[in-house]
């Protein structure tokens, strides 16, 4: 894990991908997403995540439903929509393609 600022742009670009992956696994609420990302390179805080979630919902990639919590106020549980699942699949495909291109580059023939 490299916490330096050098690759912050790369991480920023991939945050959406990471969030979609977390949500695809199971229905989660915002704090759980933050928890899931906390130990990865994609460590994000509410200040970054909430506007992103709002944008993804506007793009119809995900949706949420309210659920009571045993302590405290009710929570929004997020899940992927059909469009969101397609987007995740496309991104995964594209990610693999990127990796392949990068591996292919700079190889002496």
């Amino acid at each position, binding site marked *: 894990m490299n916490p330096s600022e050098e690759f912050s742009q790369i991480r920023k670009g991939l945050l959406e991908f990471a969030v979609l992956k977390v949500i695809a696994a199971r229905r989660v609420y915002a704090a759980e997403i933050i928890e899931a990302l906390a130990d990865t390179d994609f460590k994000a*805080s*509410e200040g970054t995540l909430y*506007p992103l979630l709002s944008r993804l919902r*506007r793009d119809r990639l995900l949706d949420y439903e309210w659920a009571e919590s045993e302590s405290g*106020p009710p929570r929004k549980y997020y899940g992927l929509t059909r469009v969101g699942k397609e987007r995740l699949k496309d991104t995964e495909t594209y990610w693999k393609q990127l990796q392949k291109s990068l591996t292919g580059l700079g190889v002496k023939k």
Partner: protein
Amino acid sequence: MNKVVTINLGGRAYQLEEAAYETLRVYLDSARAGLANDPDKDEVMADFELAVAEKCDGFLTASKNVVTAAEAAQIVKQMGPVEVEGTTAKAEASENKIALAGVDVPLKKFYLVKEGSMIGGVCTGIAAYFNWDLTVVRFITVILALTGAFSGPVIIGYIIAMFVAPTAVTPEEKAAARGQRFDAQAVIERAKKKYSEVKNNLEQQHQDNATKKYNKPYEYKYEYKYDANLNYDRAEEPTMSGFGRVVRGFFRLIFTLASAVLGIVVLAITCGAVAVGLALFLGQVGLVDQLSHINHWVIGLFILAAYLAVVMPFSMIGGLFNRLAWGKKLGRRQYRGFMFSMTLWIVALFTLANLAVVYGDRVTDYYRTHNYVQVYHHNYCVNDAAGGKPCR
């Protein structure tokens, strides 16, 4: 021993130390400003509040029910700065614009400003929008409203603006009403500016006093305390210029005179009405004899209704002028009084109309049958040349 503030986060009450409240409020305000372009701003703000609430819960136990300043700082740190995608690009773009134009063009919008307003906040809104002296704006508005050709458009425009224009409620809107930027930085800049002004004034004052008293300069330090409620809008009410003071004095004089004249008119009409009423009931005026077939009480009612119909508008306008002259606000009581007068007036007009419909024919018949009209005509139209004989 710190003061505690109770706030509502997602429908639940939380108790915070004052400084903690301040920290969270500044954070949420800056979050709101950062989300200015997000169409789901309100929803995201509600999410932020809920997140703050959950984090507060983490610090509270059965034996500790107040969030401290340090904990609030920790919460804000955990939440992280609000980053909206595309803002970096936008910020760069606007920086370029600033570099090109040399000036930052702030978002400016017309709002009704209720602080210091008298009627609907239109004049205060105009004064804020153009950064004009409030008194001058009011003066011109009233003069135009009283000048024949402009009165219609001005009054109608005022009423339309009152209903159509939005009211500046949030700090952002209050800033936009004055065309000031609203983000954390701008707010802090304004607060700092205000602080240095206050500080300079106070230090100057103390120095002057000390010089007067001890005949030697005196060092006074004013400690800066951040204004917890961000009441910069009140603090920035335009200070009155010399011209403003003159205009205000003139304004005051005119309105005082006008309300005095109206008061005298009301008094005169009241005296007249009482005199006529007494005379009628004591049978001192011939009218009663001539109309004796109509109940005295009906005539009394007619006089009362006529009196109210004439007097009410005068007293309402007089009262308004009097308040305008002394810069008093129109509060709930004035509103109630106004509505009461208005109702009385309408009831009086209605009564008059009713009486006219019910008794009008009878009065006309009476005069017709008694040849009153003819008699009157004969008496009035006298031909001197014909030796005092009635006209033909």
